[in-house]
């Protein structure tokens, strides 16, 4: 993330190489994320790790292209909402049992019952629950990165942070005395 910065600065951010790699990697990384999500029940991985992988794909774009370019081309704004949707989905799956007279978080189909397969993906509510987790984590991680990117940009554009004047550190006091 830092290695390209010195050699050939493009738009003052990173090198062309990084950008090309970032662009190439975006879709495969997202695919891996989705695979991790749905294969989670059969192999290593679950909704959480899938969410982080997908988020890292987006983070790479931020690092390579900078905030403005990414937010122009990728629909990242909606991801915050996505994470709340994920939470709702997970809670919704949890509540399914309630409506069918079972305990909270009863997953369907019942143990031992026949499971419908689509390819290698098994259709069970636990997978749906994991999808909710995925959305939540994905939205969360990208949201955090966006926020920090936003603050960095604000700082670089010279916009001053507000001062909470009621906490006078010695440095601040000294500065004020200088002014006076």
């Amino acid at each position, binding site marked *: 993330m830092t290695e390209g910065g010195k050699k050939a600065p493009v738009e003052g951010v990173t090198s062309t190489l990084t950008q090309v790699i970032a662009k190439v990697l975006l879709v495969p990384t997202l695919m891996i994320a989705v695979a991790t999500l749905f294969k989670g029940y059969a192999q290593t991985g679950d909704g959480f790790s899938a969410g982080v992988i997908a988020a890292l794909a987006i983070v790479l774009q931020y690092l390579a292209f900078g905030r403005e370019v990414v937010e122009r081309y990728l629909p990242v704004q909606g991801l915050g909402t996505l994470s709340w949707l994920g939470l709702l989905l997970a809670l919704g799956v949890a509540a399914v049992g309630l409506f069918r007279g079972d305990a909270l978080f009863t997953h369907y189909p019942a143990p031992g019952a026949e499971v419908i397969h689509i390819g290698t993906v098994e259709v069970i509510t636990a997978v749906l629950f994991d999808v909710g987790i995925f959305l939540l984590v994905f939205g969360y*991680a990208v949201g955090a990165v966006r926020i920090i990117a936003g603050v960095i940009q604000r700082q670089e554009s010279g916009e001053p942070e507000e001062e909470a004047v009621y906490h006078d550190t010695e440095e601040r006091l000294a500065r004020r005395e200088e002014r006076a």
Partner: protein
Amino acid sequence: MLAVVAAPVAALSGSLRPGLAAPVGAGIAGLAAVATLVGWLSGGGAVDVAWAPSLDLRFAIELDGLAALYSLLATGIGFAVLVYSSRYLPLHLEHEREATGTSDPGVRFYFFILLFMGSMVGLAMAQDLILVFVFWDLTAIASYYLIGFDRHKEESRASALMALLVTGITAVLLLIGALVFYAAYGTFSIPELVELTEPGALVTLAGGLIAVAGLAKSAQVPFQFWLPRAMAAPTPVSAYLHSAAMVAAGVLLIGRVYPLLQKSEVLLNALLVIGLLSIAVGGIIALTRNVMKQLLAYSTISQYGYVVFMFGLGGEYGAMAASFYVIAHALSKSALFLTAGAVTEATHETEISRIGGLARRMPLLAAASGAAAAGLAALPLTIGFFKDELLFDAALERGAPFAGLALLAAVLTLAYTWRFWSGVFLGEARGHAERVPWALVAPVAVLGSLVLVGGILVEPFAALARDAGAASFDAPVEVEPAYHLEASPENLLALATYAIGALVILSRPIWIGAARAFARAGELAGPERAYNAALRGLNRFSDFIHTIEVRDLRGRVATILVPSGILVGLGILATPSGDVYRVGEVTGDDVPLVLALAAAAIATVAIIFTKKHVTLVLVLSSAGFATAVAFAFFGAPDVALVAILIETLITLLVLGTLKLIPRKVLESGARIPVRQVWRKGSVAAVAGATAFVVAWGTLSQPSAVEGGAAARLTELAPEAHANDVVTVILADFRALDTIGEVTVVALVLLGVATLLFRGRLP
């Protein structure tokens, strides 16, 4: 049933589209009202689902008479209030904007008022004490945000906090009462409890606790002080709060658990006394108030005092009359509040003495609120006449002294209602008055005409009240309010009310001094002072704790680490150590694990000696990655995957933070004197040694049960259609924990966002 679901839905849709919030909200409120009405007419319905069977918690709601009454009030008056606010709120926000320069679309108003409505409906229908408690607290939360709607005003915030504290703390009493019942009878269900309980000290105690919660919410003495304060809210909120929601919730609760309260003579008598005190305090102070909304607020205290009084009187008249009274009062009072709002909007004045003679300029409003006022004052041809008739009936049934008290109460009502209406609409014209939009007048007109309709066609209202009374009384109620043109005791009492009321109004100059002195005395020695004193005391206490606990954080940490180290050391000395610690063999397969562990340890130690911050981050992440690799060699690929991913994210986060902070600041306080290094080093060494002994000791002694839960879980995984046991534990066996975990994650995002964005969401 629709009503329960409809309100949250409305709130959501309203919050998504700012412009549409008002019409959507009002539409859904109206729809919910109609749905409730249809539901009631078709005989009600019930839902009963166990949502945490292991704790005996049930989601039990039923649309019985009591539920129908309060749901209809909540949704019907909610509808009127929402129509009113669709015009009032933009005006209100306009004023605030001029005053403070802040802009605020006010969507949250609709969100919270609909949340309020939804939880009120839920509360009305709930048949389970825990469910009651949940909805109860929801109304408290909604009211907190509504009362504090003008959040830039300190007064608003303080009032909101006061309402929340008074009703929230007493809500805990409700919970305790519920738990006492549960401990004794093993159920939270109110109908079951009614059958099971026997009169006795237990019922008095638990019922009393629940009744206190209800009384606090209904702003009865000595909890009355929060209600006048709550007038800081925008007018539609006040109207709603007073007539159909917050305050009504208190008497709703009392009505709901009334079959239980009835079993204790003590409680009934306490209700009588508190009701009477509230009538007197509220009524007398209302006579002295000059600000319109304040007058109405004290009148509410007094009016709900009636209801509590009637519950205290008991008998079938008491139960039915209380319900009827709530209907009549809700219609009148909401209309009067909305009138006050409209008048303020027209004249920009809030005090009665600065307004007058508005009848000529706002004839429709004057007529409509006149009808409402007449209803409150119990004049004939209004629904209010019957409420007083029933009051006298109930009092007479109990005995002549009570009838006398009821008479005095009615006189007070008449006096302050007259003061409000005549002060605003009669007399000589003062000040200017602008035209007000129709949406500010129409709801008042509708409510006013309902008051009149109820005066002629009382049967529908009476039927509703009878149904509700039956639910409270736990037996069918046969009370028929009607006009009897004869010299019955009730009619004589009503006539006496009018006569004495007129006298009181005319003799105002004589008693006003005494009444003011009473109000002053209340301010000086009333419970509000106790509340404030308690609040200040708590504040000081928290400051004190803060001073000794937090100021010196590192000292605190050291005082935890060192003594716990000493204690562990003592513990080890005291226990036999022979054959406890096992070194454990290292086989050839373990070499990768050993290497990974060594890498983690070395990288960690390197962190201590790193000075530059970027290097620090890199060393930190290598320590993290080494740990992740160790996880992999523990046979935990899932953990290793997540650890690596998380480590990457954390590294990025730390780097981002470092980038935001200038280097000079980053290194502030980084260098510490050598002497301190030694001290800290030794504390850390003690901590490390403690960790070592504890870890070694516990790891040497694994659980006696070979396999245990782990083996069982591994066997169960295929049953849950999964191959990866870890995933199935997370998503299925321990899914509730996972939900908790990701909720933490979501809240952290909120926290980070607010911290980075100056307290606002991006």
